[in-house]
């Protein structure tokens, strides 16, 4: 059985949804930071408006990632050789969310330093916690994907049979 397409779809969807959590919760509702808040001080209309445009680009890319993941999942649903496992999918979502926090945290918070979790504090314990949450989510997600291995053959065979029957009817 090949569960990689399902893991890829779930991971990309988790990345997208993790991105929306960051963008909606941290950027918009709590307003702890924005995409370029370390470069553009958020105390003038011009800077705030400019930041909104870069935040918009971030959200647009997050939307694209989510849309592509829906397409991948649609393809998975039609494939008989890919297991239709809820546990693998849920694990993949967590894996993707963790990858988002880890990769975005390393690149944007540490390497490029264009923003930090709580911008008024600069690089702080919250950035370390953000990376840590990424690692924890990746570990949990991977363990869910891997421990579902034993159930996959049964699930896959059932799914294959059901799909074959549907095609036949």
């Amino acid at each position, binding site marked *: 059985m090949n*569960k990689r397409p399902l893991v890829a779809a779930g991971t*990309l969807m988790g*990345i997208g949804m993790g991105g929306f959590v960051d963008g909606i919760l941290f950027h918009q509702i709590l307003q702890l930071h924005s995409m370029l808040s370390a470069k553009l001080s958020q105390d003038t209309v011009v800077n705030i408006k*400019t930041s909104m445009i870069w935040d918009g680009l971030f959200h647009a890319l997050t939307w694209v990632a989510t849309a592509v993941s829906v397409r991948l999942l649609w393809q998975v649903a039609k494939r008989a050789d890919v297991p239709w496992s809820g546990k693998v999918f849920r694990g993949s979502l967590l894996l993707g969310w963790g990858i988002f926090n880890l990769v975005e945290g390393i690149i944007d918070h540490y390497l490029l330093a264009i923003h930090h979790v709580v911008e008024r504090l600069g690089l702080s314990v919250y950035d370390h916690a953000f990376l840590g949450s990424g690692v924890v989510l990746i570990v949990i997600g991977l363990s869910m994907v891997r421990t579902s291995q034993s159930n996959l053959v049964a699930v896959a065979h059932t799914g294959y049979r059901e799909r074959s029957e549907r095609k036949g009817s």
Partner: protein
Amino acid sequence: MRFLFTLLFLVISLGVAACPFCRTSTAARIREALFGPDFFLNLFACLLPFAAFFMITILIYHGGKQKQSAANPLP
């Protein structure tokens, strides 16, 4: 009359005048800030994580696919 003045002030308020592609001085300053010397650097900073995300997804999708299929053929 008072209502019309209130409406007029709402229409020409700073929020409206600051839309990035309006023909106002604030909008011009936003465009200057947006398309300044750091434009491509900022664009790169926004795109880089997503390039990494899509690469990771491609790696997951394609990595070891043939090996898995061969090891567990379908009934």
